């Protein structure tokens, strides 16, 4: 992980529109962001799309970054992108209600068959409710403190802690079971 001074220097370069600085940001964060999207969607193609969108947004919005935790800012954008993707999925479901079974299969099933490669963790994460799964995945991949996560989610820190604990406890049981 880049040191804070290095990261500040890279971000200044990004604000000046230097391509090589954006490349450095991609090198630092692509893996974690991709992991975040993959653990939420369980799909490589959708994760590819979301990761591309994330860095396009980063280029567009970098001037609005006013300092503070860059991870927090970046993962807030990532979380918003994931929510947009979920909303789009819901819209598509409604539009094709007449052919629900067929369409749902297309949407829910990965475009590229990942089932054989999906690891145990991914299978157990699917059993958690969407909000808890998002919280746990955000916590692990963003490396943000609970305080920062609570701020991103606009909820009291006590709520974040309680939800996280319930989710992690269940995940632990599922993984050990």
């Amino acid at each position, binding site marked *: 992980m880049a040191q804070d001074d290095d990261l500040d220097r890279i971000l200044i370069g990004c604000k000046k*529109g*230097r*391509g090589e600085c*954006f*490349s450095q940001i*991609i*090198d630092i964060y*692509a*893996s*974690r962001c*991709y*992991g975040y999207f*993959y*653990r939420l969607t369980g799909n*490589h193609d959708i*994760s*590819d799309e979301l*990761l*591309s969108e994330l*860095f*396009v947004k980063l*280029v567009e919005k970098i001037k609005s970054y006013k300092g503070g935790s860059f991870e927090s800012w970046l993962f807030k954008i990532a979380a918003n992108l994931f929510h947009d993707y979920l909303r789009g999925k819901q819209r598509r479901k409604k539009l094709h209600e007449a052919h629900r079974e067929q369409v749902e299969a297309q949407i829910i099933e990965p475009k590229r068959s990942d089932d054989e*490669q999906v*690891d*145990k*963790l*991914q299978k157990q994460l699917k059993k958690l409710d969407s909000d808890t799964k998002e919280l*746990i995945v955000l*916590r*692990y*991949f963003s*490396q*943000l*403190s*609970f*305080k920062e996560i609570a701020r991103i989610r606009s909820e009291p*820190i*006590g709520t974040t*802690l*309680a939800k*996280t*604990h319930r989710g*992690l*406890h269940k*995940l*632990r049981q599922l*993984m050990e079971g």
Partner: protein
Amino acid sequence: MDDHHQENLKELFARFFDAEQAESYVEDVHQAERIFHEHPAPEPDAMLIANLKANIAISLDSRRVKRFRRRLYEVAGIAAAIVILAIASVQLLEKSDLPPENDVYTASLLPTVIWESDDIAADDADLAIFTAEVEQIEYEIHTLQSGEELIDSEGPVTELEMELEEINDEFWKG
């Protein structure tokens, strides 16, 4: 990936739950992190990353060109405005240097002082003499009308006629 900015989880959980619960919750968090660590998520495809970097570079270049073009238009606009203003100013200055073409200048033949003065006799010597003679004649007419006789005179009418003739001669001589 389990640093989380050195957050003191035990202290944090202890603020919301009792000590025993807090300890158990912290243990759950650590266990879950270990699970994630043991099951790493797949890495993004190298080709995807290379494409992303290339697309961003292209997008930045096109933005730079657009920004440069916009600045160029702004500068050209400002320069054009300055040139137009300069031309207009020069034309206005040239016009203000020339005398107006249709204006007619007139000058009085008599000095303004004379026109404005109330004491005409003091301003012009000829006029003073003439005024004195008119006053003399007025006086003599007044005397004749009142029936008084003039001292050392040949006769009032004769004398008056002589004076009138004299004035008449002098007046026409100029």
